[in-house]
């Protein structure tokens, strides 16, 4: 056991640093640092740069374009990416549907879909939740009725993040109701969102932004080739996907970055005021959170190390999601506390590149802090609520 990087790992770290220095676009960096929402174009551009480097698909098998990195390499890359505040990959294509396609899809599907995901040519959305279904996914009602060589889809998906920007959507649908268990009769299908009968309606979230959507399907016809794997096995595939999603949801590298920013901002002297970080109670909170984040970093590293010696990422990854979201939300709270009264102004206009600096309210992105806090309450709700995660851990890890 040792804590230091090996020579090879240090060399890799130098390469990654150099890459970010040379290739990470300055306009995107500026937007990120100033709290300005990225356009889809920004995100696509950055993904294509990563893809040119061969680093777009960190976790994919090498044969489909993955990196083949060791856990420590992945850790180094994630840290550098976060340290540069680079945009996280939109997960729906790269991290969600792609693993299902390369694991359970047929050769034709792999060839048709994977390259466009890798190159960020096609954006995907997730069609899991339904109104009324929530964390109880198996109660889903959206139907796919076989009609010759087509399925006819009817139903509604909800909480579809960035659904208004996506070209394709993957859905869990009910292909049969004549089953013993609700989990049976569910299939995994891929839908071109340009197909007639698909409509996307915005859901405005608590902080006032459009990030999620309801997607309605009315007699939407898709070819049977768009079924992934076997009919009726969608639930099994979906569970695998949820576990992939959880591995990536801890967000430790990003939390480390944000904690650094918090310390930086609260160390500043403003108009003769004592920096907040000198306040004993606040400093202890920052310290305690840093400790928890460090612990989670090692918990994740231990999990990855176990995976590297052949253990599949199993239900214990739920721990990473639960703890990871708890810490992200604790960070949100500290940013808001640090902002004080400046957490209150609801001034979204000032977050654009051409906004006059003199008119800006707050020293930095204080006026983002409460909005982020509100929005990010979703972190413990979406993707299987933390309550569901705890149920999973209780059942599958603790055997209760």
């Amino acid at each position, binding site marked *: 056991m040792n804590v230091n990087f090996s020579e090879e790992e240090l060399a890799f770290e130098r390469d990654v640093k150099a890459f970010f220095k040379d290739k990470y676009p300055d306009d995107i960096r500026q937007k990120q640092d100033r709290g300005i929402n990225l356009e889809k174009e920004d995100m696509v551009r950055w993904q294509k740069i990563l893809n040119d480097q061969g680093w777009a698909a960190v976790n994919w098998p090498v044969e489909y374009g993955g990196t083949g990195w060791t856990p420590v390499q992945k850790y180094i890359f994630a840290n550098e990416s976060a340290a540069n505040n680079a945009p996280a990959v939109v997960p729906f294509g790269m991290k969600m549907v792609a693993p299902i396609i390369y694991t359970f899809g047929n050769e034709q599907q792999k060839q048709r879909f994977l390259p466009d995901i890798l190159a960020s040519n096609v954006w995907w959305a997730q069609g899991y939740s339904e109104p009324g279904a929530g964390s109880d996914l198996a109660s889903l009602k959206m139907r796919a009725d076989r009609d010759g060589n087509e399925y006819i889809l009817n139903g509604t998906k909800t909480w579809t993040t960035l659904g208004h920007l996506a070209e394709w959507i993957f859905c869990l649908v009910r292909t049969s109701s004549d089953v013993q268990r609700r989990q049976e009769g569910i299939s995994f299908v891929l839908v071109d969102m340009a197909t007639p009968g698909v409509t996307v309606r915005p859901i405005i979230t608590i902080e006032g932004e459009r990030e999620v959507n309801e997607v309605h399907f009315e007699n939407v016809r898709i070819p049977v080739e768009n079924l992934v794997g076997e009919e009726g096995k969608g639930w099994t595939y979906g569970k695998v996907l949820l576990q992939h999603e959880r591995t990536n949801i801890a967000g430790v590298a990003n939390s480390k970055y944000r904690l650094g920013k918090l310390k930086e901002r609260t160390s500043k002297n403003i108009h003769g*005021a004592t920096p907040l970080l000198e306040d004993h109670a606040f400093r202890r909170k920052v310290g305690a959170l840093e400790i928890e984040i460090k612990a989670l970093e090692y918990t994740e590293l231990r999990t990855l190390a176990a995976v590297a010696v052949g253990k599949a990422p199993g239900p214990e990854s739920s721990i990473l999601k639960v703890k990871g979201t708890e810490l992200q939300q604790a960070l949100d709270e500290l940013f808001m506390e640090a902002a004080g009264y*400046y957490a*209150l102004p609801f001034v979204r206009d000032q977050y654009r590149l051409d906004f006059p600096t003199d008119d800006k309210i707050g020293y930095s992105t204080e006026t983002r802090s409460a909005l982020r806090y509100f929005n990010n309450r979703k972190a413990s709700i979406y993707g299987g609520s933390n309550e569901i995660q705890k149920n999973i851990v209780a059942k599958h890890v603790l055997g209760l």
Partner: protein
Amino acid sequence: MDFSLTEEQTMLQDSVSKFIDNDYDFEKRQSIAESTKGYSEEFWQTFAELGWTSVPFAEDDGGFGGGPLEIMLMMEQFGRGLVVEPFLANIILVGGVLRRLANAEQKEQWLNGIIDGSKQGALAFTEAQGRYTLSDIITTAKADGDNFVLNGSKAVVLNGGRADFLIIPARSSGKQRDEDGITLFIVDAKSAGISRSAYQTVDAHQAAEITLNDVRVPAANILGELGKAYPTIDAVIDEATLAASAEAVGIMQTLLLKTLEYSKSRVQFGVPISSFQALQHRMVDMLMGCEQSKSLLLWATMANADGSTEAKQAISAMKYLIGTTGRKVGQEAVQIHGGMGVSWEMDVAHYFKRLTAIELLFGNADFHLDKYAANI
């Protein structure tokens, strides 16, 4: 020691409560909040006609002669209804200063309009660097003949954008955080040298950044004594803390009720989620948080009303507890509502936001725990 209400208090409470139930449902509240003004002028006139805007003022000033207890009863109901009308800014903050310091002429000119609802005011007690320290004031007031010249800026001034007049604390002498040397000036909001940048706040209230650039104010517009305003500001912020905390308790109780209701109707895995023991126990924790908060609200309000020596400790204790348990109650309400809890269309999301904003007003939990602990 007595927790019972007088008949007058009960009537006041009922009157506000009925208004919330009959005239101020969530849809109405949202349409008001999203209107250009951000509050209903019509309702504000109703508040005045019903005498609500006159509650804390002396009968000699045309008021009802009420105190912290009456304000508490009203604010709890305002919390329940998520009322956006600027009661706190006009009646508690501006009114609190005027009824203490204004002379007859000043009352005539400014207070009457506050009480009859015809004027909007704002107390600009915050500066960006000061966080929650009321004496941290670097806005300057320099004497110049019969006038004073004000320079500086004020941050997140509640009601500041639509106020007809402003009360500006400025430093006429002393150093940045000295309590001595702070003077209150009352100025027309349209005076030369004042620029305002108004905005909505995250809880659908209104505030503004205010810059003072060589603003000339006649000495007659000083409220009270030169350099001696701090104790008044401090006392008014205490009252505002009590009022906002009463609103918070009203919100917390509403969030609990709505969460209980939702959990009983929301079915997952074939049963209402209210049947899940883990959620039940958390809702019991919410209840305990609400009850404990209500208890300290009563203690602090009664102590302040009775002029008890423990009033300041009680206020800090209350704000600390409501800050910490309010955050917890709000987060749990959202979490148990699941995706709906983070949807703009759901009332719960907006109660949560207002509760969060109150946590940040007049000193957060850390600030008040330090204040309290300094005197144990």
